[in-house]
């Protein structure tokens, strides 16, 4: 196992899957050169027939991915920033998500969408959103939010092999994070949460870039004798309700940390699910830690005020512990 970055892990998975299945191909803006990191020789390996630069036209090329999938290929479609997906929401929500169902199962839509999300410092509101909340209520899609290199590779590989449209949200702040990543056949099932740290006193369910923050906080609180369990759902559709409920049934207290805006966040969905199905386990109110309900501001001190950090998770944990 090599210690590699998130971006390297993504490309490792990408290359393995593209070599495995000749019906896969990549389309997006500047994909032949790669705007946000790349693997050396990636383009040379697969050439212009399987790595296609697109004109600036998100609806057009996301829709082209839909049509190409319906015609028998497995497109890997890159949308540079998650906020740009809005330009293609019809193709994503009305077409990719629904066509299999509306065709009575005839259409196969094995599409992997790669996109970058989250606040990274001074990118402002149109380049800093999570966007997955806008897709939680779109059945037909799957949503993966890896929190580190190994999951990124494993989830991406599963996404590419999946026969459904899967959007993989790569948090910009995680791009350079490093860990040991299994080489070759490393698959992370879509719909399987991970217990990132075991604990007894409180469950912190953390999504994407909130996972390393939760783990750092858990580490710190351990010295205060507080035992925090950190659960990473890894995919928001499907959601591993079992794993979440199992943890809550043990700790009886829950904090949900999500970088999305609070209102309508994935934290809200998970929280309500627990209040419905795990109510009897709960000894304290559910506590969400999420972004303020404001567009993400540019200026660093403002961004910091909007985006939740380690401290906010810690405060919430201490609060539910009473």
């Amino acid at each position, binding site marked *: 196992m090599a210690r590699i970055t998130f971006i390297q892990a993504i490309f490792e998975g990408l290359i393995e899957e593209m070599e495995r299945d000749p*019906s896969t*191909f990549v*389309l997006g803006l500047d994909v032949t050169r790669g705007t946000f990191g790349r693997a050396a020789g990636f383009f040379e390996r697969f050439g212009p*027939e*399987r790595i*296609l630069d*697109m*004109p600036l*036209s998100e*609806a*057009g*090329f*996301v*829709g*082209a*991915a*839909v*049509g*190409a*999938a*319906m*015609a*028998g*290929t497995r*497109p890997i479609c890159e949308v540079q920033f998650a906020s740009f997906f809005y330009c293609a929401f*019809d*193709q994503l929500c*009305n*077409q990719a998500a629904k*066509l*299999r*169902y*509306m*065709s*009575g*199962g*005839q*259409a*196969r*839509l094995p599409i992997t969408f790669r996109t970058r999300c989250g606040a990274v410092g001074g990118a402002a509101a149109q380049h800093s959103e999570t966007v997955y909340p806008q897709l939680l209520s779109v*059945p*037909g899609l*799957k949503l993966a939010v890896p929190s580190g290199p190994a999951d990124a590779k494993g989830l991406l590989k599963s996404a590419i092999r999946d*026969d*459904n449209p899967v959007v993989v949200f790569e948090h910009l702040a995680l791009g350079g994070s490093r860990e040991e990543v299994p080489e070759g056949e490393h698959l992370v099932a879509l719909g399987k949460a991970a217990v990132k740290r075991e604990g007894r006193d409180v469950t912190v369910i953390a999504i994407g870039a909130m996972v390393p923050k939760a783990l750092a906080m858990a580490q710190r609180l351990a010295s205060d004798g507080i035992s925090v369990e950190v659960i990473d759902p890894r995919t928001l559709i499907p959601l591993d309700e079992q794993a979440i409920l199992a943890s809550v049934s043990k700790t009886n207290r829950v904090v949900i940390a999500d970088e999305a805006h609070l209102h309508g966040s994935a934290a809200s969905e998970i929280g309500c699910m627990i209040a419905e199905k795990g109510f009897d386990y709960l000894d304290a109110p559910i506590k969400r830690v999420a972004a303020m309900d404001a567009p993400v501001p540019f200026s660093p001190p403002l961004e910091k005020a909007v985006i939740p950090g380690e401290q906010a998770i810690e405060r919430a944990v201490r609060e539910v512990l009473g």
Partner: protein
Amino acid sequence: MDIGKELLLEMYRRMQRIRQFETRLKDLTIRSEIPGFIHLSIGEEASAVGVCAALRPTDRITSTHRGHGHPIAKGGELKRMLAEIYGRRTGYCKGKGGSMHIVDYSLGILGANGIVGGGIPIATGSALAARVMKRDDVTACFFGDGAANEGTFHESLNLAGVLKLPVIYVCENNGYQVFTSAASVTAGGSIAARAQAYGMPGFALDGNDVLEVYRYASNAVARARAGEGPTLLECRTYRWEGHVVGENAFGGRPYRSEEEVAAWKARCPIVQFEKRMLESGRVSREELDQLIAQTQAELDAAVEFARSSPLPDPSEAAADIYG
């Protein structure tokens, strides 16, 4: 271009199938046997058939909300279509799609679409797939004059133009976007002329002349198959019926004159085609009547099939979401 008799009759048969299917459908809808929105293409049969007659079975099409004619022209089964429109489990989509979403993968019918302009990128992607898979299948993309103003039209034609994709864009200009005249919302006046902006040939045709459509479509298909890129065909035609069955219930001021409707009906694509075939002496009235009768019988059977087919079980709602 010399068109064999067999093909002539086949085109005629498909036009009859569309006309009779939709005429019956209108009737059944008015009698409230059918739920949902029904958009008829009566009067527009020539473009669907002229284009699809130029395609191979492995070629693909995308259709629109006005999506019965194109699947029939590509060879779709009347009974599975009608069963779908009746919401039966024997329908093409097991009752999940309905009138606006007819699909038959085995025939390359990628689907009608309830979103105007929604099918244009999909057709373009289908053509891209042929390129990626090194196949020479062609995709025909049907859409209306209204759809030509959607951003997806521009993005797709640009992409196809740049990559020289094997796709034929078929704009059925029936003069209206619901109640709004195409002329009043289409800048530049000509949809065909927009092709130039994308470096592809564009032609405005008599969309009521199935042979003219077939001729242009055949050329476009040959070009596409040879890797020479896309073509835009603007077929000027007319819908005889309202935008949707029952549009009169919407009330409101009339949006087209009786004279206009009458003038177009006088140019019925089926009657004109019949006349030409009969005048050429290659085809007899009896042959045509036989086709009409066959279609009639087939349609009767389809109605019977749809009516007697079971509705889906509520439990089936949970199937087919994911594959």
